[in-house]
């Protein structure tokens, strides 16, 4: 079954990312050069990938073309910029928002060929440190602010 990852980012200023960046600086994390945020979706579906990508990127439940930019990747496809990416997702059964979104996509947006869907927040960090320190630094930031261990999990997408 084909699988695709969709990354939705804002083209206008992202207040959440700015607030996160300011908060981290106030907390003493001064090595962050840049912090961006993207909404992450992963779909398993039936049908042709190009057709699916074209159709899903036009669903306004997920993308508003006036303010969003969409990018697709195959799972494990590398990120060329070499930045650290922390993916925060809810742990299983912790929330019903994802299942309710899937139901809306199937029933209201006509995307009945979606078989499985995952959602999350992707934090993209540029860290000014030695390469061997970057990963522990990113984990420290994730633990301090970006996810709550009781109902969320974080993973670093290290695809180079």
């Amino acid at each position, binding site marked *: 079954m084909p699988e695709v990852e969709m990354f939705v980012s804002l083209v206008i200023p992202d207040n959440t990312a700015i607030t996160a960046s300011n908060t981290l600086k106030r907390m003493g994390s001064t090595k962050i050069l840049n912090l961006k945020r993207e909404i992450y979706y992963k779909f398993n579906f039936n049908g042709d990938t190009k057709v699916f990508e074209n159709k899903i990127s036009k669903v306004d439940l997920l993308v508003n073309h006036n303010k969003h930019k969409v990018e697709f990747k195959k799972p494990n496809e590398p990120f060329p910029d070499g930045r650290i990416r922390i993916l925060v997702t809810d742990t299983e059964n912790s929330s*019903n928002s994802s299942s309710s979104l899937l139901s809306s996509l199937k029933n209201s947006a006509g995307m009945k060929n979606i078989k499985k869907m995952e959602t999350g927040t992707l934090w993209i960090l540029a860290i000014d440190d030695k390469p061997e320190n970057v990963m522990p630094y990113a984990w420290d930031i994730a633990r301090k602010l970006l996810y709550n261990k*009781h109902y969320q999990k974080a993973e670093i997408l290290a695809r180079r």
Partner: protein
Amino acid sequence: MAKQNKNKNKKSQAKNKGHEKKSHAQAKHSSSFKSAQSGASSKQPSHTKKQLLQNSPMKQKEVIKAQDNIKNNIKNNLKGSRIRIAVIWFPGTNCEEETARVVEAAGMSAEIIRWNSDTARLRDFDGYVLPGGWSYEDRIRAGVIVAKDPVLDVIKNEADKGKPVLGICNGAQILVEKGMVPATKPDNEIALAPNVNPLVSGYYCSWVYLKVENNKGAFTSLFKPNEVMLVPVAHGEGRFMTSDSEVKEKLRRENLVAFKYCDENGKILEKYPYNPNGSFANIAAVYNAKGNVLAIMPHPERAAWKKQIPGFYGTSKEGDSSSAGRKIFESMKFYIEKMKKEAKNA
């Protein structure tokens, strides 16, 4: 003629000066809770009730009421025993006015304080309330940005000294993210996760029944054991949960759960609509281990007068009488008075 006018001007200037002095004195003595009412009164401080009758009937009532409030506040302040509560306002907080109103109704003095005010001034207060709303638009997670703000360190220090801290809804989310409840370990032991509700995902509001589980803490001492009260809930991230089974056991063993969701008879039913968000063990409010910090998801400040309760059809006078939600604030007052007495005796 010119001389006459000059004299007239002098007289009116003197009169105005008198007004200024009076209103300043009133402002100094009056409660610092800046409601719309007190604002109206400071503009027309020395008008008699007769003069006010010339204004529109609504305004007359408001101004007269505000003047009476100020008089009462001056009386109470002159007694020198007014308990001062800081209602902390963060960017995005929107329940500060009604919270301050209930604090006043419970017999304390409320002051709405901005999050970036002088922290030294903040230490002078006898207690703190973090009201509901959407601080920082709930960015990242509800309450997490404020939890990292230096002002919370000041409040935490004061709580460690025994001062009471009440977090309502978004205030509760802040206290939980800060790790101020249940505070049996240095780490964050519990979380307020997104609601799990069979009808809607995200924000949900309704009226729910709460049962008193612990009436020993600073905010529940005036409740009877197992008392049931009706209060509104309004949140999207209000599900108490923990991934640490030891904490679950500790909450039960140390009796740190202040309120649980229940039915109208006080029966704990772990299903919707009695439990509106899927909280584990139907928890609606949690104390810290000392019992002076309370994180409560429902809004007791919206159930403090009988007229606010659904199904109330009494007279206006009956409607103005106290309802169960106010007891949380009255218990807070009782706790501070007790704390002050003990400090005096010591």
